[in-house]
């Protein structure tokens, strides 16, 4: 409630707020402490809004808060006066339902869109993470400049950080894996994480049942324990408390369940079914030999009194003293607040969205102001009568503002309803891209935001009409008949200004939407490096016990590929160890003729594939020969490398015929071809070097194996068939996941997708509002010049001339708005440079299209009043004179 009062204080004129704001808040606090009740809340809200209106009314009409004692009686019963004003306002709206419906829906649209976007921003950026003292949590990541854009940490470095730092109470690493749980009703593929024993301590989370990992269990060989998530415990173990101490089988390895996580616990980066200890061979890692592994995420808790900057400084010192394992690779360390790390990539997107949606609200305000101004014309006599009967100018302005507030309140209610209904849709869009958002609560904060947005809008759109309504000279208004409009020129200036502003904002929104769409399209369909349509991907996690690397695994995978190829609707199928663009370039390799001391070698992604892989995905072979079925176990070992690999590892040289090997124990592979780059993970990022080699020669397709199937029709239908076929081949081997390439891409380019969909919607709404705005202005123009047009028609003007006159007028407004809008868009769109891919923020095509499109819509909207004007009956006009 206090928050709401504080928000409502924003409505007051600044000078007043400065003088009395603190006192008002203190007084309200006292009052609330003594007798908090819903009635008091309502009274206070109504009173604050009313007082703000009255003060603004006085400010506007007296030109300052210079306060004299008005003769009218007021303030003796707040609720009574307010209800009276409210009833008056409602009656006014009731009398013109068309106006009310349009104004309220336009406002509802603006407020609703803002509230919805704010609820996302609030959930992602503003709310603390769901852990105690979450602001003390940091993420520590290592960057490997020169090898990979991915942020992963070498286990050895993580261990050294842990041993040497003095700034963290504890530091923990974790890496997620997909693993298979067997020994229950049917094999289950789980999202699991290997995590340091310290992780839960750092997050200050206690297991719901059982215990946390013990420090000693982090070591390899002693890590045969597991903690279940609450939902897995409920789903697969029926919520039985006896589960503690029970043995389960994960990837054919027996583990003992030692704990269950609390129900509302969420991992920093998403939902996890099960966790096991990190399980690293720490001694071997610290030797930094061939056994090097990585940790995907590292988080830590700052010691009390240690600042982020101090932690950063100390970690940089530690990092600079660590041994460098690879030549030519620059390691550096980044320490970020955990929340900042989690939302880092989303921030720019969300702020752009908030900006765009704010513009939309401005447009809605301009539209309503438009409507109010034209309406003021018909109410001029009413105002003059009230004024003549003794209402002061401030009172009339106040009353007009109360009417605006009523519109604002109705719009706010409509907007909240809109935000509420679109919440599910928005959540489904956000959930795929945001860091672990489970819900978008419409709570007090969001409500307060909507209320303030609506109230601020009401003030924005209410001020112009209130000024002009209260300022009308009485005698002139009363004397003139209803068709001669005093103050028309001034109003027309306002209206033209508003329409120009709307066109300008619409241009900004249209260009933003257009740029996003283009960028998304390019990212999605043009520059991937392979053909994404009609592709199905199935991940198999091969059980290491039953399918160890070697002929047995190859034979099984051959069967799987063959079965997939024969599925009805399948055109071709292949197998690879990574989905296109997946994996990390962290595996080192050796090059014949170049000496690297042990472990100091360049790195690349390594992908074991079947010969059909390139054909199925449509990855072009740029030079050399394609991989063939005959490149099997007995033949000369070969490799294919990606374009980036060739450019980076063999600059200025021909890679074909060069020989490379993965480890010193393995034979050299001859490079026989250079193939195209594939980008999926981060399309905006530079592609990483990749080595492809035949899985038959490697004796393994790696882990997990990815089956890719090109289909003739929609690949979704094939999903269940894949499950069935694999189950026929081996009932104990589950298929980890089946997804279409579209879905896979969506996951990796989903952030642009959210922004693209929303910004396109905003652009469409902007276009609509600009159309409505122009329609309003042109209708007013026609009404204002009703007699003039009638006379012109009477003395021989053709209807076509009248239409041309109105349209010319409209076009002038549109062009003025376009000039302002283009300027604004050029300036603003720089902000979204980071969100765009392959499109310049000043793309002339987009700008041109936006102007043309908007002009067409604007002219179409103006055509309606233009035609009305051309049909004015000259005789009727003249008779009325």
């Amino acid at each position, binding site marked *: 409630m206090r928050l709401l009062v504080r928000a409502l204080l924003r409505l007051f004129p600044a000078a007043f707020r400065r003088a009395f704001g603190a*006192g*008002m808040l203190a*007084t309200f606090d006292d009052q609330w402490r003594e007798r908090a009740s819903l009635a008091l809340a309502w009274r206070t809200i109504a009173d604050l809004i009313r*007082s703000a209106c009255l003060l603004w009314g006085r400010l506007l009409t007296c030109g300052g*808060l210079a306060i004299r*004692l008005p003769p009218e*009686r007021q303030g003796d019963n707040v609720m009574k006066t307010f209800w009276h004003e409210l009833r008056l306002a409602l009656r006014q709206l009731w009398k013109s339902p068309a106006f009310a419906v349009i104004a309220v829906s336009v406002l509802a649209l603006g407020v609703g869109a803002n509230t919805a976007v704010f609820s996302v921003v609030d959930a992602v950026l503003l709310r603390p993470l769901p852990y105690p003292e979450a602001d003390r949590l940091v993420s520590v990541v290592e960057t490997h400049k020169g090898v990979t854009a991915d942020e992963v940490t070498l286990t050895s470095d993580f261990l050294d950080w842990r041993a040497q730092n003095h700034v963290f109470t504890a530091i923990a690493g974790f890496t997620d894996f997909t693993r298979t749980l067997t020994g229950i009703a049917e094999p289950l593929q789980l999202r699991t994480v290997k995590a340091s024993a310290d992780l839960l301590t750092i997050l200050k989370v206690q297991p719901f049942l059982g215990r946390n990992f013990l420090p000693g269990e982090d070591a390899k060989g002693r890590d045969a324990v597991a903690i279940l998530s609450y939902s897995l415990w409920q789903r697969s173990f029926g919520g039985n408390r006896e589960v503690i101490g029970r043995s389960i089988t994960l990837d054919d390895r027996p583990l003992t369940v030692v704990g269950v996580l609390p129900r509302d616990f969420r991992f920093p980066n998403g939902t996890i079914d099960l966790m096991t200890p990190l399980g690293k061979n720490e001694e071997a890692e610290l030797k930094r030999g061939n056994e090097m592994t990585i940790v995907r995420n590292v988080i830590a808790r700052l010691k009390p009194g240690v600042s982020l900057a101090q932690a950063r400084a100390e970690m940089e010192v530690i990092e600079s003293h660590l041994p460098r394992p690879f030549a030519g690779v620059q390691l550096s360390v980044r320490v970020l607040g955990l929340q900042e790390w989690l939302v880092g990539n989303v921030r720019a997107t969300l702020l752009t969205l908030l900006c765009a949606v704010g513009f939309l609200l401005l447009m809605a305000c301009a539209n309503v102001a438009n409507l109010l101004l034209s309406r003021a014309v018909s109410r001029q006599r009413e105002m003059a009568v009230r004024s003549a009967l003794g209402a002061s100018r401030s009172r009339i302005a106040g009353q007009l503002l109360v009417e605006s507030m009523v519109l604002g309140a109705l719009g706010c209610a409509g907007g909240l309803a809109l935000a509420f209904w679109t919440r599910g849709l928005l959540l489904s869009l956000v959930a795929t891209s945001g860091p672990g958002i489970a819900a978008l609560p419409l709570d007090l904060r969001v409500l307060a935001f909507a209320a303030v947005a609506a109230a601020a809008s009401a003030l924005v759109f209410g001020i112009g009409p209130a000024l002009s309504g209260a300022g009308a000279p009485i005698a002139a208004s009363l004397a003139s008949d209803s068709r001669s409009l005093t103050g028309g020129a001034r109003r027309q200036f306002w209206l033209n200004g508003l329409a120009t502003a709307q066109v300008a904002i619409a241009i900004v929104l249209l260009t933003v939407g257009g740029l996003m769409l283009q960028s998304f399209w390019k990212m999605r369909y043009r520059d991937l490096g392979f053909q994404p349509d009609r592709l199905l991907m199935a991940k198999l996690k091969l059980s290491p016990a039953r399918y160890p690397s070697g002929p047995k695994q190859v034979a099984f995978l051959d069967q799987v590929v063959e079965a997939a190829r024969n599925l009805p609707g399948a055109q071709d199928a292949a197998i690879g160890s990574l989905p296109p663009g997946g994996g990390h370039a962290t595996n080192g390799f050796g090059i014949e003729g170049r000496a690297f001391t042990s472990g100091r070698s360049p790195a690349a992604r390594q992908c074991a594939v079947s010969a059909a892989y390139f054909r199925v995905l449509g990855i072009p072979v740029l030079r050399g020969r394609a991989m063939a079925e005959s490149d099997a176990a007995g033949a000369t070992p070969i490799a294919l490398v990606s374009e980036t690999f060739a450019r980076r590892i063999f600059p200025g040289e021909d890679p074909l015929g060069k020989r490379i090997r993965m480890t010193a124990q393995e034979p050299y592979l001859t490079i026989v071809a250079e193939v195209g780059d594939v980008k999926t993970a981060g399309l905006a990022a530079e592609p990483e070097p990749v080595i492809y080699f035949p899985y038959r020669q490697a004796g393994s397709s790696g882990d997990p194996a990815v089956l890719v199937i090109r289909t003739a029709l929609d690949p979704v239908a094939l999903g269940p068939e894949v499950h069935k076929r694999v189950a026929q081949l081996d009932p104990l081997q589950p298929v980890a996941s089946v997804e279409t390439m579209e879905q896979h891409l969506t996951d990796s380019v989903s952030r642009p997708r959210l922004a693209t969909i929303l910004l396109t919607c905003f652009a469409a709404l902007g276009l609509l509002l600009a159309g409505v705005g122009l329609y309003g202005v042109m209708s007013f123009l026609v009404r204002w010049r009703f007699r003039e047009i009638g006379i012109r028609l009477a003395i021989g003007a053709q209807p076509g001339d009248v239409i041309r006159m109105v349209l010319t007028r409209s076009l002038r407004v549109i062009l003025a708005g376009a000039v302002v809008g283009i300027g604004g868009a050029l300036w603003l769109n720089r902000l979204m440079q980071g969100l765009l891919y392959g499109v310049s923020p000043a793309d002339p095509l987009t700008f041109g299209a936006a102007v043309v499109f908007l002009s067409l819509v604007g002219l179409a909207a103006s055509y309606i009043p233009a035609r009305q004007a051309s049909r004015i009956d000259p005789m009727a006009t003249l008779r009325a004179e």
Partner: protein
Amino acid sequence: MPGMNGTAMNDARTPPPLKPADFHILLALLEGPRHGYEIMKEVERESAGTVRLEVGTLYRLLARLLEAGWLAEADEDGRRRNYRLTRLGRRTLRSEAERLALVVDRLRLRKLLPQGNI
């Protein structure tokens, strides 16, 4: 017309009748400085619940009375600022009370109100 009544009614410097809310705010400060919430409670008590000020209106009126020079800001304790009557304010209150007393006298004469203390 000579006499007290005449001066009260015809003196050009006499302010117009006070509004009840203003009157009650001034009345509430008669016994000494008070802060916002105390004024609010005192007004409600003094007026027997007929005048009820919410926080927005209270401060709007306080601003007006300060501007008119009838109130002044007194000392501050913590976040709460106290307000006190000025001499002008006291005079205004007094003349309003006299005006009301006069009205009451007249109504008594016309038997609308009972005789004696009410």
